[in-house]
């Protein structure tokens, strides 16, 4: 990897040097604006690859429908600078090799301007390397993963993440656990990969400084193997765990909760953001998660007073008929909402470069439903940086409290403090259409 990175830099720097020189010696009249891939005078084409089928698709397969719904709404209201937005959706089944192929097709065959909202740490790592998005200047925007590695701008110069990093999440969770359950035996189940590694960093001495009485790492895919979740629960029960953290994917949460119910293991559940919304996947699990704690950076989807939720729900009803408005639909629509602002900020002469520059220059100011700030800048490709805590109510929806009053916290992926944020969310633009 060291060599791979070095050679990419070697090649990239040489090519860039030649390009810079060529621009400097070209006559001014030759430098007229060029047409950009994925952009015409009337259209903008974007693409996404994510699991639409298979065990990893639960919930996530609702993202494109919601994104399309918002784009259709914008299109019906004149588009972006007169251009209608389309979204090409490709199913990767959560398989890195398929994600690579899909992305190559999106770029070479569908000729999209940018990839947006692609899902998964492994898939995006594989794509960034094999497709070489950075060297080719192809934006991969608002990636749906909290893996902190993507926040390395040198390694991922054209990528940006949307979710807070898992390190941030673990730091916030540490503070919450220590303040809420002092003296209790806290235990954790976590995925034994980059996802879990990030969490371990966030919980470690120099970050969240959280001690667990019992920690169980599960290899990805093992959660579906008969008997395996039962073995986890046996360890937690034997360890006398009183508070149970699950830092895993939704299917792991699902199987863990079910195994716990079977074993009459009833700790206080603290569910990480990634695997929390299992009530939407399997309504039968709702009784088991009532009262469980989790975290979100979006408002609750059942918040009756949130203007973003209300507008997005309305758009979802009209442009995504039949699709339930849940946490995934909210994130999907919000992603599209942010993307539209980026496209607008990039100006009429829309290019991949101007799009990336627009996010760098204006991304932190984009209106959106998030209750914590976006952190895009010339030096940061990090999206949200915090969460609020809430509990699952009787309908399986995460709520902050009865009055829907949020107390969001923010932090960084380093050793910075966890603080209550003073962030004031921009108001929803009129009609839900960015200016």
């Amino acid at each position, binding site marked *: 990897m060291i060599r791979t990175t070095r050679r990419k830099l070697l090649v990239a720097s040489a090519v860039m040097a030649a390009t810079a*020189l060529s621009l400097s010696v070209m006559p001014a009249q030759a430098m007229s604006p060029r047409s950009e891939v994925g952009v015409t005078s009337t259209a903008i084409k974007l693409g996404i690859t994510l699991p639409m089928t298979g*065990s990893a698709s639960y919930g996530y397969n609702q993202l494109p429908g919601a994104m399309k719904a918002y784009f259709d709404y914008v299109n019906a209201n004149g588009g972006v600078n007169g251009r209608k937005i389309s979204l090409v959706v490709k199913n990767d089944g959560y398989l890195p*090799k398929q994600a690579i192929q899909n992305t190559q097709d999106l770029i070479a065959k569908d000729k999209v301007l940018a990839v947006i909202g692609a899902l998964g740490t492994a898939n995006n790592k*594989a794509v960034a390397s094999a497709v070489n998005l950075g060297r080719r200047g192809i934006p991969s925007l608002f990636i749906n993963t909290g893996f902190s590695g993507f926040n390395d701008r040198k390694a991922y110069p054209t990528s940006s993440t949307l979710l807070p990093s898992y390190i941030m999440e673990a730091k916030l969770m540490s503070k919450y656990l220590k303040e809420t359950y002092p003296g209790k035996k806290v235990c954790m189940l976590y995925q034994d990969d980059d996802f879990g590694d990030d969490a371990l960093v966030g919980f470690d001495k120099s970050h969240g400084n959280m001690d667990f009485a019992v920690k169980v790492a599960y290899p990805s895919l093992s959660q579906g193997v008969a008997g395996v979740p039962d073995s986890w629960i046996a360890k937690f029960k034997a360890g006398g765990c009183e508070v149970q953290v699950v830092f895993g994917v939704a299917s792991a949460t699902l199987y863990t909760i079910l195994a716990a119910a079977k074993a009459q293991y009833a700790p206080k559940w603290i569910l990480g953001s990634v695997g929390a919304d299992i009530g939407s996947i399997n309504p039968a699990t709702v009784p088991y998660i009532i009262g469980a704690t989790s975290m979100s950076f979006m408002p609750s989807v059942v918040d009756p007073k949130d203007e973003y939720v209300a507008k997005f729900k309305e758009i979802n009803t009209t442009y995504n008929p039949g699709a339930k408005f849940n946490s995934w639909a909210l994130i999907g629509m919000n992603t599209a909402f942010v993307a539209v602002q980026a496209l607008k900020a990039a100006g009429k002469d829309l290019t991949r470069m101007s799009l990336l520059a627009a996010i760098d220059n204006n991304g932190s100011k984009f209106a959106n439903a998030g209750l914590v700030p976006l952190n895009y800048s010339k030096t940061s490709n990090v999206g949200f940086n915090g969460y609020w805590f809430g509990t699952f109510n009787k309908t399986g929806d995460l709520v902050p409290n009865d009055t829907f009053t949020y107390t969001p916290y923010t932090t960084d992926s380093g050793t910075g403090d966890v603080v209550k944020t003073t962030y004031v969310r921009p108001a929803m633009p009129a009609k839900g259409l960015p200016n």
Partner: protein
Amino acid sequence: MRTTSFKSRAFALVSTATMLATLVVAAPANAAATDPVCDGKTPVQTCTGTTSDGAAYKMVVPATFNGTVTIWSHGFGGNTTIPGVFAVDSSAQLAPSAVSDVMVKYLTDKGVAVMGSGFPTQGWNLDEAVKTNTELVGIFKAKFTTTTKVVAWGYSMGGGITQAFAEQHPELLSAAAVMNPVDAWSSQSKYFIDLLWLMKTWFDPSIKLTGYAAGAAGDMQMLGDLQKYTAILTALKAGVASGAWPTTSSATGKALQAGGIPSRSALLMIGRLAGISAQSTSFDGITGPATSAFTAWPLAYAPALATLENIAGVLGYSLLGARDMQNKMGGISFDNQKTDYSKQLSDEDRTVYNAGFSGNTAIAGMLQTLSPLNPDAPRIKGDAAALAKSASTMYESTGKIKVPTVMMIGQHDPVEPAGIVQRMSDLYEVDFAAAKAAAMKSAQKSGAYIAPVRKLQVIWSVTPKAWSKFDADGGPISLSGTPGTGHANFTLAQYKVVIDAAIDAAITGNLPWTGAHLSKITKAKGLKVDRDTLYPWMKYYNN
């Protein structure tokens, strides 16, 4: 039409046969080259002779000879004869063996002459072959004085020979066609030995691998090893679902098994550490059966099975190459005492194949056992004299492009990973960017920009989008001939595209980037020209 590059049909038998008594063919003593003896036939005459090092050569020259001649370098051939099973083949070859007659006719019909030799020795014969080729070009030019252009081409070992030939003697060549070339021996041998050593270390420590006896006794030892490796692969295949380890596994292997790490994870780890592709002829790592294993199969099982299938494809070459080099260098010319195998697992692989490895804890456990401090994983200590001889006498290809060159390689060639060509392509891009920058700078002074001419065109043989098949029960079906997989798995149409482009470049001085050429690439199917295609370099370059 599908073809393969095996120099000899019998080579495949070496991989699987019950091995008999062996003998090593001695290299012929140097003598004077013989002038070509031509049959004088029309419209095509055939000439034969022997170079000064004893290599048999052949030339086929049309009456319409237009001054361009190709010189073919064949692939790796065994240097060991097994009576009744395998014979060393040193006959002169003119084109890819499976399509040789068709290709010779195709070229001579165009007025292009063809030539090639059988080389004076087989095995890892890069230096000997370059010498032979150099001499052969001189012999041809002396005989056919209207020769103006020489185009070198070859695949596999012959691809490496062709590249080395072009690097060392650009003055003799007008263009080259380099197909799935071997890397420099330092890199290629590391690839071979890493695979073999890792398998021995975990799955069967009784494998000898190094220090074979001289002569036929050593050949028998090597063949005994081949049988053991084959047994390992058979056991691993049987244990893919259950995770069972071969019964021959080392104490270290058994400890990993006791730790709950399935053998398929260890197999995948070996492949990722060595750098063999995790996609193969039968396993795409994309398609899953229409069962509950739809996602788990391509993530956890297919990469291991692809690794196994690819190792089976390279095993014979690895052992024969290692054995041959030990013979030539008079000892072990490989040393992994200081290799840090944990550094050979890329960050990307650690993530992408995490489920296949059974998680980070399993990854850490496996890598820990490969520490030099583990007495149950003894490293290979090279012989000082052999290492010195290897370093001082063998040419190491630089990958520099000195003549217009067309390269072709399969995405998932198990013998010569695509990263070999990727590296040369990457290095060339750096050179080309520098040339471009220099031209720009010059233009600032002169006011006239003279663009540098691109000298490298890489054509990738690519797979279909998905290719794995499953039976009604969800079991995988074994496939053959999947484009972009297997060793030098090229079609006649693809060979034609490559050699035509090289001949075109030789005649015009420029590689073809025309619509007509690109259209031919498209029509040949399964090919693409893409400078951004990325494959990891060989692991040797990580150290």
